[in-house]
């Protein structure tokens, strides 16, 4: 037990872990070129173990494709570093007034690491497109999808039953909810699919599709799985074929997908697929995961300012009106480095389209966004304390000894 404690508190372990961190960052940077920042971050820093694979695009990629480098991931290195620092602190630190700054410094660093872990677990990134004059009360996730069935029978409000898209990827998945008089049986699921109209001249070249309702059946669409895309700015077309089954048997089979056309910069959403069952109106969809806001945001005006006489932009800004139920409305301006903070979300000016009449906001939900600031204040306080104490001790030392 003692030897484990001494190993966990050793500087050798610190050096190993820092070395592996460098390795992780190095291979992560290499992969970022091919897989984009989101996937790379997930692969290297949000895993306990990870594996780097020799890219096929590199020199002799066809001969060296067997080459893998397994290594510890961020979720192993980070906690071990915290453990190492804590063990070293309790092993070597002898409390005294002269060293009162040390616990602050160590505590600040540990808090910084834990804050990063919290951010990685909890942070969600959304976006919101608004045209001038348009308003919206939800934001959509960049990387998550949801399968929803919406009860639209009440014109005043919608009842939305939602399941995260990964639930559809389970074998023989059947999704049911007590609020719905039917269940959804997943016949087929693809994390990325190609959806296109069946070509008239090569109709037999593609398999028969099982859906008999909705846009898929109406337009005779074909859905085929394809390899995942990791490029920045691109998004996988998550698709599924779902059969709804009531007490009396099957109601119908639909093709659902989060994207209809990969147009840039805005992707075209899959058309609304509505149906009626037992006198009630429903809508079925696989869409970007939504986060509903307690207010409605309206884009009043988008400004794309350029330097006079040039096309070089110097400012993008969106004038936004927030309609809050009960408290009325208020106007705000969102521009570069001046985001809107509302209901735990931060709205950044991110993009624009349609001849400067549409604005896109990147919306970040990060409950741990204050942790780095607090950690830095604690660490700085510790450093200042330690420095001042050392200075005082040095100044009080008798001059003959000092000389």
């Amino acid at each position, binding site marked *: 037990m003692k030897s484990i404690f001494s190993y966990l508190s050793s500087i050798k372990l610190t050096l190993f872990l820092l070395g592996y961190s460098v390795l992780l960052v190095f291979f992560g940077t290499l992969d970022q070129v091919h897989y984009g920042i989101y996937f790379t971050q997930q692969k290297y820093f*949000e895993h306990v*173990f990870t*594996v780097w*694979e020799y890219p096929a695009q590199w020199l002799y990629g066809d001969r060296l494709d067997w*080459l*893998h480098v*397994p290594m510890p991931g961020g979720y192993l290195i980070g906690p071990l570093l915290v453990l190492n620092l804590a063990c070293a602190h309790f092993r070597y630190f002898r409390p005294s007034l002269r060293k009162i700054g040390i616990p602050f410094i160590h505590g600040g660093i540990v808090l910084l690491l834990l804050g990063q872990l919290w951010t990685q677990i909890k942070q969600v990134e959304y976006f919101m497109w608004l045209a001038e004059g348009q308003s919206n009360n939800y934001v959509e996730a960049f990387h998550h999808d949801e399968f929803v069935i919406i009860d639209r029978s009440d014109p005043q409000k919608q009842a939305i039953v939602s399941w995260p898209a990964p639930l559809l990827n389970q074998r023989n998945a059947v999704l049911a909810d007590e609020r719905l008089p039917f269940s959804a049986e997943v016949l087929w699921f693809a994390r990325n699919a190609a959806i296109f109209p069946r070509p008239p001249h090569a109709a037999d070249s593609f398999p028969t599709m099982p859906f008999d309702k909705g846009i898929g059946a109406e337009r005779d669409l074909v859905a085929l799985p394809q390899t995942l895309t990791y490029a920045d700015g691109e998004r996988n077309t998550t698709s599924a074929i779902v059969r709804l089954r009531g007490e009396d048997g099957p109601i119908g089979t639909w093709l659902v997908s989060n994207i209809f056309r990969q147009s840039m910069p805005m992707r075209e959403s899959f058309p609304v697929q509505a149906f009626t069952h037992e006198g009630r109106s429903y809508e079925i969809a696989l869409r970007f995961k939504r986060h509903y806001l307690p207010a409605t945001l309206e884009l009043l005006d988008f400004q794309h300012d350029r330097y006079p006489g040039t096309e070089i932009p110097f400012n993008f800004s969106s004038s936004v009106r927030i309609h809050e139920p009960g408290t009325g409305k208020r106007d705000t301006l969102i521009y570069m480095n001046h985001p809107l903070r509302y209901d735990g979300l931060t709205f950044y000016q991110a993009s624009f389209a349609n001849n400067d009449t549409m604005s896109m906001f990147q919306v970040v939900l990060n409950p741990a966004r204050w942790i780095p600031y607090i950690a830095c204040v604690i660490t700085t306080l510790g450093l200042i304390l330690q420095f001042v104490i050392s200075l005082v001790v040095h100044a009080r030392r008798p001059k003959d000894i000092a000389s």
Partner: protein
Amino acid sequence: MNETSTIDAPRRTKVVRPGLLEVSLLMLAFCGWLVLIANMFGLAGRTGWLFPVVTDIPGLALSTLALALLGISPLAVRLALRRHNRQSDR
């Protein structure tokens, strides 16, 4: 009476300790072995944060073996040299 005394030559029987590079390589090989086992038994990719899914299992196995050999080889060479030195000392 003649007494003979024998003084042993200093024995060099220290354990061959692996260096920084060897330990690093062996740790990487250990990680590879764990990922390999997780993939072979279908554990990889279940949680989304523990083991990554690797499609090229033979490639990973070969790389793990290569890393292990690279880590062990300098140790084996040092051990062989030590034995050789000891025998030549005798």
